[in-house]
């Protein structure tokens, strides 16, 4: 499975905490622990966009990991 583009709404839903998922990829969990807090404190479009950039880059760079593949199914179906 390829990583859906940054414009996919699910990325925004994750960093804003609108939707939460039980993920497997350790780096994503640690990063999201920080990003969701940052966005909660400052929900400006710029902060949301920066956060989406970071989580998207993390998934894109590790797309071959089994945990990332599992998480993408969990998030995007």
């Amino acid at each position, binding site marked *: 499975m390829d990583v859906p583009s940054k414009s996919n709404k699910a990325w925004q839903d994750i960093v804003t905490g609108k939707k939460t998922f039980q993920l497997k990829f350790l*780096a994503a*969990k*640690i990063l999201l*622990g920080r990003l969701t807090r940052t966005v909660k404190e400052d929900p400006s479009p710029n902060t949301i966009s920066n956060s989406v950039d970071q989580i998207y880059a*993390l998934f894109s760079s590790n797309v071959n990991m089994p945990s990332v593949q599992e998480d993408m199914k969990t998030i995007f179906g």
Partner: protein
Amino acid sequence: MRQTISSVSDVKTMIEAGRKLLLAGEEDVLHQLPKGDWIAGTIPYFISKDHGGMVSRDLLCATDITDLVTSIEIVAYDQNSLARVYTEGPKHGFSFIVIPAMSKTHLSFALNAPNYKDFGIRPLIGWIAGVHLSDLGKKTPKVINGITGDVLEEGALVLQAQLPEGKVAEIGIVNLFEQGAGDVLTFTTDDFSATDVMVNGEKRNFAAYIIKNKLDTKLPLVADYYGALVNISFQDVDEVEGLVKFYAPVFSGIRYKHAKPVVDYVKEFNDRLCKECSIESARVAFSCNCILNYLYSELEGKKTDPFTGPITFGEIAYQLLNQTLVYLEIMDV
């Protein structure tokens, strides 16, 4: 798992045969080794396959990654350049880091790694080098680059390993501690120590709070990072100064809770592995566990199969962790 507890002579033989090794042991023992494809940190505590938890000033813990990787390079960083550790990681592989405990680089990494550029973009695993507990204050932890022979007590060494096609590296943790049912604790600054704590939003002196509530400081603070439980271990509670020190920094805005007790580490460890049922020993390339788990859970002579390896002054799985087992799996894709 390719981790063994070996004599100096056996490790010399492996190095001379061109094996690529991640080593742990006493400084005097490591100095006896010839140059070669190895990286090391000082520590005399290990979990071995045969004897479980053990301490040895003569033996070395050797993790042989020769057959897993296509090439390695060892890079030295200082507290500033380490900010590039994720960006410079191998595109198809993993980075293995060792940092001397209490060095400026250790403290800087602990505080700043979550905000380094490209955090997590490449797998980063490793540990904090230490000393025998009876040598605290007498000897300093060190890391050694086997290729150059350089010995550092300030800085970090990173072994960048390339993997063959069809293999990927995954990093996992086993943390037996969970958040208890007590107060929500937050802090206003990122620091290795705290005078004040916000208890359910109310400012209190943290040392006084710990004493009044009789918190067992062998149990860490636990934060929930989107489902990943991250510990902060207590180092010292100074009632007179009103200061609490930690082995890793607390971060502002993160909601911590004091951990539930772990009554029998080995039993709960085995229960956890059975429950998760996803760790195949053949895939585990490296693991290490925390000196505090070794001490508080009395792991000497006890096994934590399938995990062996060094017992460390801090564990690194992307960022610094406490009282946590970290492991590296090499998987087929």
